[in-house]
């Protein structure tokens, strides 16, 4: 992973992935949180943005950083560290916002940004390589975790945006 991230390039790569659906392999965008590598289904990723601040929503949960302006649409931003119960960390230049598409329990499609320490990589994982998550450490809410994906570099914690972003 290079030191300076290029959001434009990442978005370009995301754009190429749109519409490409390979039944055998699922692609996951991975990112770092507290030195752990997490990932979400790349088809759920709308875009990646630099952290530019957000407007605080009064009386909202701590993990909700606020709302941001995404080309005229009001999009909530959530700090994934806080959502997962990880220690809080000041935002650095590498901190990015991943804009994810998710579906609410009543079937409406929404988008929400999540703040992560840094974007890592795109992994191709075949469904066979995804295992049910074993009992996880107590500070991670197990309902957010879809499973564990095996890659050459190690295990990826695969998150489910639908449960993760339901507030």
């Amino acid at each position, binding site marked *: 992973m290079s030191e300076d991230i290029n959001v434009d390039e990442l978005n370009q790569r995301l754009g190429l992935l749109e519409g490409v659906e390979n039944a055998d392999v699922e692609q996951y965008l991975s990112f770092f949180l507290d030195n752990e590598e997490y990932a979400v289904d790349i088809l759920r990723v709308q875009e990646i943005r630099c952290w530019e601040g957000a407007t605080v929503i*009064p*009386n909202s949960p701590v993990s909700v950083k606020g*709302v941001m*302006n995404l080309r*005229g*649409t*009001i999009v*909530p931003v959530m700090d994934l560290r806080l959502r997962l119960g990880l220690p809080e960390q000041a935002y650095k230049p590498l901190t990015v916002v991943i804009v994810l598409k998710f579906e609410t329990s009543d079937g409406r499609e*929404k988008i929400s940004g999540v703040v992560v320490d840094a974007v890592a990589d795109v992994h191709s994982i075949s469904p066979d390589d995804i295992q049910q998550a074993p009992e996880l450490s107590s500070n991670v809410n197990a309902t957010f975790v879809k499973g564990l994906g095996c890659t050459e570099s190690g295990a990826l914690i695969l998150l489910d945006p639908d449960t993760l972003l339901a*507030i």
Partner: protein
Amino acid sequence: MTVDLSQFYQVFFDESLEGLDAMEAELLRYSAGTQDDESINTIFRAAHSIKGGSGTFGFDSIAGFTHVLETLLDQIREGQRELTNQHIDLLLQSIDCLRDMINRLSAGDDSVPDSAAQLKAAFEAILNDENELGPEPEALQAKQILEETSSLEQLADTQTLGWKVTFVPSEDILMTGNEPLFLIQELTELGDHEVELITEHIPQWQQLKPEYCYLRWVVKLYCDCTEQQINEVFEWVADECEIKIEKLQTKSEQSIPAKHPPLTSTQPQTAMQSVTQTTDSNEQIEQTKPVVNKPAKSKQADANSIRVGIDKVDSLINMVGELVITQAMLSQLFESEMTSQTLSRMKEGLAQLEHNTRDLQESVMRIRMLPISFVFSRFPRLVRDTGQKLGKKIELVLQGESTELDKTVMEKISDPLVHLVRNAIDHGLELPEQRLAAGKPETGKVTLNSYHQGGNVVIEIIDDGKGLDPVKIKNKAIANGLISASDELSEEQVNLLIFEAGFSTAEAVSDLSGRGVGMDVVKSNIQALNGTVDVESEVGKGTTFRIRLPLTLAILDGQLVRIGQHIYIIPLVNIIESLQIDPKGVSRIGGEYDVLHLRGEYVPIVCLADVFLHKADAQSLTEGLLVVVEVDGGKVGIFVDDLLAQQQVVIKSLEANYNKVEGISGATILGDGTVSLIIDIISLVRMAGVKSMATANLVSTDVNAEGV
């Protein structure tokens, strides 16, 4: 050379419907006794143009029908007759009938509603009655006819006796190996039946293709089979034909005809007659003849179109013109050499651009705003008909008809309004005798009032009827398990129970209201528009329903305020004034709650930083500013650090991607691209726990709040 007139049909339909609306409005003025000299001419002209138009386009049924109407109107116009209430009734019924005819025609169906012939006969009877040209006998006869027609109208309520199945096979059905004969046989096995063959679609001999099936059938089944059974018969040919299944309703049982043998030939026949002559005079078939082409989409298009005054469009065009000029000026400046002079001119140009953009935005928004009379205009007729049906005398008062409201809001509010008005007439107003006995005028009064208040449009439905009966409501609520007998409820709380699901106070379910679709639906419809509804009632005096709706769902003028580093927007319409607090005027109530004595009023202070849990700069009341806002007729002061700019903001939904946030009505994007939240004053005050607000004649002891 022939001209294809069909392209003008829609225009004719639109104009005719407009004409009918005008006729209806004028007729209602007659029945209310507020007509003027022009009224009869307006009615006559409308009828005349409908007749003329329909003649031109070859809609003979309408032309024939309107002709008798016009003749009668002409006689009235010439002073040969007087316009009696019976005439008005008949004319109103004919307007309904004509509307029906036009709607059917615009759907591509040229059938005539059954009421048309009856009404036409009624008019002709009046017209032929020349010997006794005088109000007395004529009125009598008209009344008789009216009774006849109304008895016929009641038929709609009689029981279902069977089905009318219209079977239109596609022309090439025989080539797909399907035999219509078998289908009809199968259908007739369901029970008593009657089969009619429609042969009018057989082409000229020269164009006739022997392999094609040009025949259609209408099968009437007089049995209690289900619609599904009928559908099953046609299951295999559903793609090759059109099936229309309608309920068959008859007045009496006797009309069940003898069995007719099903038609056995599928070949084109030269005998172009129906196999059976059906039309028993008692029969009423709800719907229409089969239509080969699908119903026209005109109705849907209607719902999504908007009629805009030409002045609004003109102003739009002007503004776009100005915008183009400004843009041209700016691009010219960019091409010229940069001097300090061009720079200042460019600044000017940008200011102008801003001005243009705002004007344009306002104009575009205005297009969506329509006067509420669009909704109100349907009520005179509704009130008149409902009142007649219930034997109640009602005066309808419409106020504030020019109040403008966003079109989307308007469309969605009309059904709840109809429901509330019907309720007011049905449950609210008493019968004339009861009213006289209660010492009230015989004629009940229903008032529809609309006005702007703050950023809202308020619509009131006021009746001077018997009011809500708290005891009855309470008992009902206890019976329904909504509350328990031991609950202590104030009268207001009791009244609000009528908005609970599954609540209906009408002891007997009437034809008009109380069909189980209750006030809870009204409430949820209004809430869906971000509106509120409440009710005020006094036993014996009447009931007032008050609906509060946001003016528009799109834009507002806002005052930017700052608390610490947070910027919020307070809707400008709510703001009365902003001031610096004089600490001498502040009293602390209950040790936790500040009230400012402001020119004889006590204004509770809501500290925005406390409610929203933000860190404020101002450490004491003297360091910040107080924004005094009006809510529900009371005043509240919102304490903020500072006031910033005032600007118009486009309301964006927070809920689209997030949830509803208490105290916040929406969000907007400021000039620098950051998001700012718009404060919902009512909800904010509720959050702050300020229950009772200061009003001009309120003394401080009345302010019993729970604290900020």
